[in-house]
């Protein structure tokens, strides 16, 4: 009896139960697929303002141009970086030229351009105002500010 059982065990070898592992793996995949929200390359990483009881809403704007105002890195003393979407930092004049082109392209399709200002919360108002003035001189009438959604500090 014992010999038969031993032989049976030897023939079976060491078993590896895949079922619970696959269960867990699928669970993780479903979790990540539902939770993932791919960040746009236009949204350059920065510390955004977290207003008290933020009213900011997640909306998708079609004809928008994002102006990122960042603290220059790694040396913050170098001033502010202005960049349109994922483009490299540029001077206000170059930014203005980009906006003019974007406005022209939107106007050709009969649509208005919306300027979205994403600015680091540690910047001074004067720094962000430079971006607003660029928007203003291009006569773009619609502007939006970016802040964190939800409860702020």
């Amino acid at each position, binding site marked *: 009896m014992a010999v038969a059982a031993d032989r049976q065990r030897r023939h079976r070898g060491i078993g590896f139960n895949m079922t619970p592992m696959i269960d867990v793996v699928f669970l993780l995949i479903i979790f*990540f697929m539902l939770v993932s929200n791919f960040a746009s390359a236009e949204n350059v990483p920065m510390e955004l303002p977290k*207003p*008290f009881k933020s*009213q900011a809403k*997640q909306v998708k704007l079609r004809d928008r141009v994002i102006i990122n105002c960042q603290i220059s890195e790694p040396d913050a003393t170098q001033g502010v970086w202005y960049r349109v979407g994922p483009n490299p930092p540029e001077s206000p004049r170059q930014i203005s030229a980009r906006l003019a082109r974007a406005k022209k392209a939107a106007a050709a399709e009969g649509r208005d351009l919306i300027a979205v200002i994403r*600015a680091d919360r540690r910047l001074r108002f004067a720094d962000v*105002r430079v971006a607003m003035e660029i928007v203003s001189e291009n006569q773009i*009438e619609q502007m939006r500010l970016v*802040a964190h959604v939800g409860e702020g500090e």
Partner: protein
Amino acid sequence: MANPTSRSASNVDSTGPASHTARHRERVRRRRPGTGMSLHLAPMIDVTFLLLIFFLLSTTFRRAEGILGANLPRESGPPSVALPISPVVVRLLSTGPAPGDYAIQIDNFEAQPVTFGELTQFLIDIRRNEGFDAQTPVVIVASVDTLWEPVVDCWNAAVRAACKNISFGGEGE
């Protein structure tokens, strides 16, 4: 008609371990008739792991960001709001380098809110006065050295108070 598989199984040498495995397989096959279709788990698990590793490596959890509607500063562009006689001018002054170093001042009103929560309440309360409603323009005038965060906080306070005409003003306002 004889089964070709069983024939091949019976043809192998019945003494060695290979023959034992073949016999075992044959036994299992006979025991479960009608299991001709089988699911190949290996490629599925490959893909699944690939996806899992992709998500594990690519995911970075970030706070969601949203948009606040805004109007341009009135000094440097065409006016986006037709101003009536009595706009509410909210001044934001910097009192230090830290984000919490600011002071709120409201022109021509006795009540002076200290926090942005109080500012929201103030903007709601003034609608009890004649000539003020949700359409009354709120002009935010920030000093140049004020940090961006309190400026956005101030704007957010006005949006919370359901003010419809909010704009930035120049310092000469």
